[in-house]
């Protein structure tokens, strides 16, 4: 994979590109001044600065080594619970993100046709004026709802939300329906929280993973927890149609048929209930709806599930018994999206309920608290204007139980194309690459075609920026401040470790500038980033300088006064809801039920996707360090199946679904079910502004068909079936 790698030393390369722009504008070195004031850098500009990673959403703590005003190394911050001194390969490669030679370092305004990649440089003033005037024009002509806003979950999200809600648009796209809506909605319905925390203590005996490839889709501290649990002798049962690196470390790998994990979990519920293996005390005291659940799952026997899942009835029964024996020191892991079918909401519900039946609350699962901390301050702001327009993504009028903050992104895209219930005209995109991330790429490009105006905030010319009218260059996570992040009893700071390169600016600055131009300055009452942070820190009585030096501030959680007499959850009943009245009242089954997933025809394959340790979604493929140590992206096919089709490793193949065709190289491997093929997502970029990633691999989103789970709004990627033939 050295084809597109420059042979030059990457640090020199970064220096050259940064220097070229820096010549034009000599800003005072504010970061260095602040870091010197906090005692982090010496007179030469050398030292160590604590901050937080942003190579994925896990947000590890990091310590950056700075020499002569350049970041030369990142290490995990031992004080941070998410990293414990470690970083994954993406975290280690973070400085290459910042020193990417393809960074966009000035505002750009499109001069050619959309997608042609012709832009001119513009000043911030001009670019912001263009963006604000176009947004205002759309609002004046069609109403504020004609502006769509979308951004992937990140620390400056509260200010992004300020911009969109103050502007008055209900149309908010996040990445979540492309990922884990089913898991979140399931936990909300069962436990009244998005995702309970998981506890990997020394007593943990048994872990059941449903497609959670924790050793490749790395969440640094949890990946460490899992390996240590295995080290101590915990049993790990892993369901996945692929023999992943997690499968290789699991005690037992079950290559279950895609979409059938629901049947597997329903059968576990059946055995645990019919054989009375559940925690009777916990169930009677802390749950509602046991009888409804019992009645429903009575028909889901192990013998029923066996032919569906491809797992023998004895194995399913044994696993149910093992779980009950190990309870409460068991963890049935929700994962991100299980097998990712339209029935996956029920799979997630079955998982959430299994945990409750096994009585593992406050043993291996607990309330993890949220990312918002009540102890932090915030700038004052007026209430948002009332919005009466329907949301284009169908929340809540089509998806009544999907939270507004989460939404159904693929539905939003579909309704931009259809213009129903109304036509959207503008799209504000921040730190997101919807052209690559929403299934059926050509449809997303079609949605872009419906827009009068598109603006993208990013650090590189990602594919979405490539199709935009204005690109606003954001400072990278090593160059900017973000709002504070509460983790346990601390709040952590992301702070610049180097000066922003070129004219890149923080999201806090960009949103405020736009807000002021749109007459919404009251929603951005902070002088600058440091002022925002000081207002956040005010109730803690800690100075920003102190937090800059340590990287965090102590923010004691409300102490638990002894053992509460009664456990309670934020559900309508105050208990764990095995039967959900909320679901039932809007016409969905109140308990998990069997829904037969579609299956491919004889000449088709399930198209699977899944993460690798060297990439995050669709945004890191241009990072040269990750590119250097990544496997060549090829479509996996079972070796015997490939042989039958006359295909061999490195053959070029044509892969087709009902929405598209791609050409890619084949990897014939033993590590996948014969009825599946697998692609690493995030390759096949369209932007020629990504010189490392362009031309590498093929795009999964070009062939993914859009299916949406009617309850959680989650997309169902694995429901795409493809044919494969020699190209």
């Amino acid at each position, binding site marked *: 994979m*050295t084809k597109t*790698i*420059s*042979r*030059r*030393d*990457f*640090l020199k390369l970064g220096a050259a590109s940064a220097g070229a722009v820096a010549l034009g504008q000599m800003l005072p070195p504010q970061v260095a001044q602040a870091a010197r004031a906090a005692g982090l850098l010496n007179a030469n500009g050398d030292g160590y600065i604590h901050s937080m990673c942003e190579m994925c959403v896990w947000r590890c703590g990091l310590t950056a080594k700075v020499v002569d005003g350049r970041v*030369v*190394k*990142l*290490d*995990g911050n031992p004080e941070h619970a998410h990293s414990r*001194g*470690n*970083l*994954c*390969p993406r*975290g*280690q*490669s973070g*400085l*290459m993100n910042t020193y990417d030679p393809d960074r966009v370092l000035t505002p750009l305004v499109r001069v050619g046709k959309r997608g042609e990649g012709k832009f001119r440089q513009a000043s911030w003033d001009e670019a912001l004026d263009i963006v604000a005037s176009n947004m205002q024009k759309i609002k004046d002509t069609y109403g504020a709802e004609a502006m769509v806003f979308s951004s992937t979950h990140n620390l400056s999200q509260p200010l992004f939300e300020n911009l969109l809600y103050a502007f008055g648009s209900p149309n908010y796209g996040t990445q979540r329906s492309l990922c884990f809506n089913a898991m979140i909605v399931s936990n909300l319905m069962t436990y009244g929280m998005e995702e309970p925390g998981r506890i990997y203590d020394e007593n943990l005996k048994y872990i059941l993973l449903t497609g959670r490839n924790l*050793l*490749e889709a*790395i969440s*640094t501290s949890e*990946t*460490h927890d899992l*390996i*240590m649990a295995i*080290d101590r*002798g915990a049993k790990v049962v892993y369901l996945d149609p692929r*023999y992943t*690196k997690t*499968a*290789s*470390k699991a005690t037992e*790998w079950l*290559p279950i048929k895609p979409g059938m994990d629901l049947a597997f979990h329903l059968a576990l519920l059946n055995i645990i209930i019919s054989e009375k293996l559940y925690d009777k005390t916990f169930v009677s005291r802390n749950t509602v709806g046991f009888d409804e659940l019992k009645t429903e799952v009575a028909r889901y026997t192990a013998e029923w599930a066996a032919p569906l899942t491809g797992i023998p009835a004895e194995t399913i029964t044994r696993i149910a018994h093992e779980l009950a024996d190990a309870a409460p020191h068991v963890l049935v892991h929700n994962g991100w999206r299980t097998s990712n079918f339209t029935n996956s909401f029920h799979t997630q519900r079955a998982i959430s309920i299994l945990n409750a039946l096994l009585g593992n609350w406050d043993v291996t699962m607990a309330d993890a608290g949220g990312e918002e901390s009540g102890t932090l301050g915030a700038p004052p702001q007026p209430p948002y204007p009332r919005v009466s327009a329907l949301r284009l993504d169908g929340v809540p009028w089509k998806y009544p139980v999907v939270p507004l903050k989460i939404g159904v992104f693929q539905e939003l895209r579909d309704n931009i194309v259809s213009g129903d219930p109304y036509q959207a005209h503008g799209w504000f995109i921040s730190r997101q690459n919807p052209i690559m991330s929403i299934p059926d790429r050509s449809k997303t490009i079609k949605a872009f075609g419906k827009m009068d105006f598109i603006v993208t905030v990013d650090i590189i010319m990602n594919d979405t920026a490539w199709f935009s009218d204005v690109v606003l260059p954001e400072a990278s996570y090593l160059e900017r401040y973000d709002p504070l992040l509460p983790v346990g009893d601390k709040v952590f700071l992301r702070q610049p470790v180097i000066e922003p390169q070129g004219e890149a600016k923080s999201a806090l600055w960009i949103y405020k500038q736009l807000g002021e131009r749109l007459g919404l300055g009251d929603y951005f009452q902070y002088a600058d980033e440091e002022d925002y942070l000081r207002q956040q820190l005010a109730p803690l009585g800690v100075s920003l300088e102190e937090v800059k030096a340590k990287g965090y501030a102590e923010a004691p959680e409300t102490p638990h006064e002894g053992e509460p007499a009664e456990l309670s959850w934020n559900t309508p009943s105050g208990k764990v809801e095995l039967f959900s009245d909320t679901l039932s009242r809007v016409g969905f089954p109140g308990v998990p039920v069997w829904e037969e997933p579609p299956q491919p025809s004889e000449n088709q394959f399930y198209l699977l996707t899944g993460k690798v*340790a*060297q990439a995050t979604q669709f945004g890191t493929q241009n990072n*040269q*360090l*990750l590119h*250097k*140590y990544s496997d060549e992206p090829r479509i996996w096919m*079972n*070796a*015997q199946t490939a042989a039958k089709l006359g295909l061999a490793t490195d053959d070029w193949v044509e892969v087709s679904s009902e929405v598209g065709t791609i050409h890619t190289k084949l990897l014939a*491997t*033993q*590590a*996948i*079910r*014969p009825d599946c093929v697998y692609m690493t997502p995030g390759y096949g970029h369209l932007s020629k502004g990504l010189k490392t990633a362009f031309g590498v691999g093929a795009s999964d989103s070009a062939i993914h068909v859009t299916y949406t789970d009617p309850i959680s709004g989650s997309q169902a990627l694995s429901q795409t079936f493809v044919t494969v033939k020699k190209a």
Partner: protein
Amino acid sequence: MAEIKHHAYLFDATRCIDCRACMVACSVENNIPMDKTRIWVAGIGIKGEYPELERGTMVYHCMHCDHPDCMSACPVGAYTKAEDGPVTYNPDVCIGCRYCMNACPFGVPHFDYDKGIIDGAFIDKCTFCPQRIYNGEEPACVQTCPTDALEYGDREELIAKAHARIAAHPDRYIDHVYGEKENGGTSYLIISHIPFSELGLPTLPETPVNEVSEKVMEMTIPFALSWGAVLSGVAAGVHMYNKNKEEKEGEAKPEKKAEVEK
């Protein structure tokens, strides 16, 4: 961290998830060019036939041998074995002969065809991150490892830890600490659930290879001298024999001599 008398690594193959964080960390820490690496992944890949499969990896870099073959092979003394563990390479002395590459049983030293003539740095290999370990930090590869598959510490302590781990889970590990004795001992120690030869490690005697080679080398001069003496003796003997023979023949063939004189 307690005082380290002999810096060493311990690699546990049961914990390695092949994430390559160590490789990226090393590349950044040591500013390695984009087409080079000082750490490699070896192992069995994916073995077996679906669904009966096995998979395992080992990451490795310079083993920092106690008796480094690279050092004994080097004709100009470009390699040094520090008393506290690291084997280091001095590019200023190197003449680019590549003997070290042939000598290393692990195939570690790599020749840099680009940099050699220009920068004088012909060989590239792990340095043990002296800029970190002598400042109280772990080597870059160890520091970042998200699963503690790589650990760093004093060699004796790591050997004890490795044996303790094997003893605690005899069903899981092969009962051997690779590098404890191999090649006279290395500072990169490996424990594994997969046979070491399948991971790609050479089967080496406990006697260091270089002890044998150095003994041979030490014998070169005495051997050359004594062999020279033998040859000289033989030559002298042959000369004497021929001389005697000529004398005898001369006595027998006087006419010929007379003819020549004519």
